[in-house]
């Protein structure tokens, strides 16, 4: 394994980063005798502490610290950051090595204990790091046999981590004092003299043939495919459905008429988008990215609606002056102009060869685009402008939404009837609180209503129509 066997835990330990000498309890995997490691620490403490054995450094530190000592975090008091820490005199060290401190005993004892119990939460990282060498060295000298279990707690944020660390610990009796090890063993429940071994090389990876991998992916059962099931493993819990917040493509539409009553965009089944920019209509072919200028509205007018036929070959164009045009996409020519409406045609909908147009005066006309006398039906049921129009997929019903806060459902069986024949208005649904904004809703609703399921579920038909 790649883990360092000296570290009891994979978790981040704030203190262990800069710690050069290991305290006895941490000497995993080393076989030094207790005295030897102590000696090593002593000498390392000497190296890292430039003020050791000097009277000046000691008084300096003492003078600087007392006021802070009891008022702020114990870590902060430890060193005056750059100075290298509280010095330990030689006599103090000698006493420490036998487990007792006489000179300044109370204070140094407080040092050790309070630092152990107070987590270094408020002190900055740099201060923590600077304080490390000194605190480690000092503790191991002054309190060689002290039960230092609390050290684990202070370096953990949560109790979970503590448990984890204890779980993962093994003890090596040779490298620390017997009493200490026994206490740790008793506290953690880790048996002594146990070794955890792993084979020196990692298990072989499965064959990584990309072709084979693809085949395997295909034959995987559904439940083992990624994201098929919510799992409780940590690494997969936050897999959520990604909803794009950025558009995949942005097309510039200069001069598009700012009027939400108009329907200036249509996307055909052939993956082309028609858009009307004021009096010009353009085709954008999504497959190739090609932009084609299809044509212009008559002089002095504008395009108020666009709608592709169901096969995507033809484009119905409603004009602000009331004409309805028919364009061939392939040849990019205007096939015919169907006149008759008095004001703008704001919405169009195709049903096979019948193009229905909703007009500003509230009337809906059916145009049979194949015949010269194109008007084959008129539906008058709206007081306000027709702003949403949608045939149901099978052509049975037509939904229309108007500016008068009414949604009408029309029987679609127009047949070959004389012009001027009125269709039946099947249902009307009045919005009680009409407002301009509700028109958008109506437009959407009329689209929804073209689905019969929706209609039957939410709207009650008059009994005579059933």
């Amino acid at each position, binding site marked *: 394994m790649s883990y360092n*066997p000296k570290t009891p835990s994979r978790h981040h330990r704030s203190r262990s980063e800069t710690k050069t000498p290991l305290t006895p309890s941490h000497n995993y995997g080393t076989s030094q005798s207790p005295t030897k490691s102590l000696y090593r620490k002593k000498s390392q403490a000497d190296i890292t502490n430039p003020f050791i054995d000097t009277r000046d450094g000691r008084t300096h530190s003492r003078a600087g610290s007392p006021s802070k000592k009891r008022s702020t975090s114990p870590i902060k008091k430890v060193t005056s950051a750059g100075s290298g820490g509280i010095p330990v005199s030689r006599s103090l060290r000698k006493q420490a090595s036998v487990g007792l401190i006489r000179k300044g005993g109370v204070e140094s004892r407080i040092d050790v204990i309070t630092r152990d119990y107070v987590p270094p939460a408020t002190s900055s990282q740099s201060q923590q790091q600077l304080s490390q060498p000194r605190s480690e060295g000092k503790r191991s000298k002054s309190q060689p046999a002290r039960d230092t279990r609390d050290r684990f707690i202070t370096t953990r944020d949560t109790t979970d981590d503590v448990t*984890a660390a204890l779980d993962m610990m093994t003890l090596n009796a040779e490298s620390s004092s017997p009493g200490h090890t026994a206490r740790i063993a008793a506290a953690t429940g880790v048996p002594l003299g*146990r070794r955890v071994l792993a084979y020196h090389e990692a*298990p072989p990876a499965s064959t990584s043939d990309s072709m084979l991998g693809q085949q395997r992916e295909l034959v995987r059962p559904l439940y083992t*495919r990624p994201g098929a099931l919510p799992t409780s493993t*940590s690494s997969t819990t936050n897999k959520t459905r990604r909803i794009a917040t950025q558009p995949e493509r942005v097309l510039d539409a200069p001069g598009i008429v700012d009027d939400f009553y108009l329907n200036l965009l249509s996307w055909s089944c052939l993956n082309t988008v028609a858009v009307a920019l004021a009096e010009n209509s353009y085709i954008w072919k999504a497959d190739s990215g090609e932009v084609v200028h299809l044509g212009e509205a008559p002089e002095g007018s504008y395009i108020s609606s666009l709608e592709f036929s169901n096969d995507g070959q033809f484009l119905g164009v409603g004009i602000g002056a009331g004409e309805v045009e028919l364009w061939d996409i392939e040849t990019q020519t205007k096939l015919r102009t169907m006149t008759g409406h008095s004001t703008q045609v704001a919405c169009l909908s195709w049903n096979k060869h019948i193009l229905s147009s909703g007009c500003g005066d509230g009337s809906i006309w059916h145009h049979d685009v194949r015949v010269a006398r194109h008007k084959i039906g008129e539906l008058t049921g709206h007081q306000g402008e027709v702003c949403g129009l949608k045939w149901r997929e099978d052509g049975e019903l037509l939904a229309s939404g108007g500016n008068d806060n009414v949604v009408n459902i029309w029987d679609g069986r127009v047949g070959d009837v004389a012009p001027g024949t009125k269709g039946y208005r099947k249902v009307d649904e009045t919005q009680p609180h009409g407002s301009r904004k509700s028109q958008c809703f109506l437009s959407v609703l009329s689209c929804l209503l073209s689905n019969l399921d929706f209609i039957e579920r939410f709207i009650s038909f008059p009994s005579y129509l059933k």
Partner: protein
Amino acid sequence: MAPTKQAPTRQAITLKGSTNLVTEFFKYAANTILFQRGVYPADDFHMVKKYGQTVLVTQDLSLENYLEKILKQVNKWFLTGSITQLVLAIIAKDSRVTLERWVFDINLVDPPSSDSSEPAPAKPESEIQAEIRNILKQIVSTVTFLPVIDEPTVFNILAYTSESADIPADEWVDTDPLAIEASKSQQVKLRSFSTDVHRIEAMVAYRYEG
């Protein structure tokens, strides 16, 4: 599960025989786990008849050799009685998080008391095999409650030995126990089986953060 026999005889199964039996069990148990938990692709495995049932065993030569090498050493430790636990850990390949730990505790059955009276009849091999079969079946059935792993994983085999164990220094190294944090793990005890010499207790711990 049948209770452990307290006074087995050494005539039927010797230490060596028991060791081979247990080692062989580990081979099939490890293969079953690796197959069931999808550590290696399913088509790496082929079916063999063993313990009166079909067991899936890897065909991947490198993996086969790897397991062979490990089990060979485990076998030696068995003979000296210095191994106490064998753990198969399943680790997420990318995050190195331990997802599952399959723990097999190895206990030496107390040697029979030295009274020379008629010892209890040896545990018939068919009974041992039935116990092994039950463990393997249980491993298979754990997929019903273990969390679905849908990321690439690797495995590692850990051997818990006594301090005095004879360890080939360049092949086996001290390592992290790959434990799962206690608060995030669930444990399920599986069946156990015993020969006249060894008793194996199986357990699976898996990461579960409710």
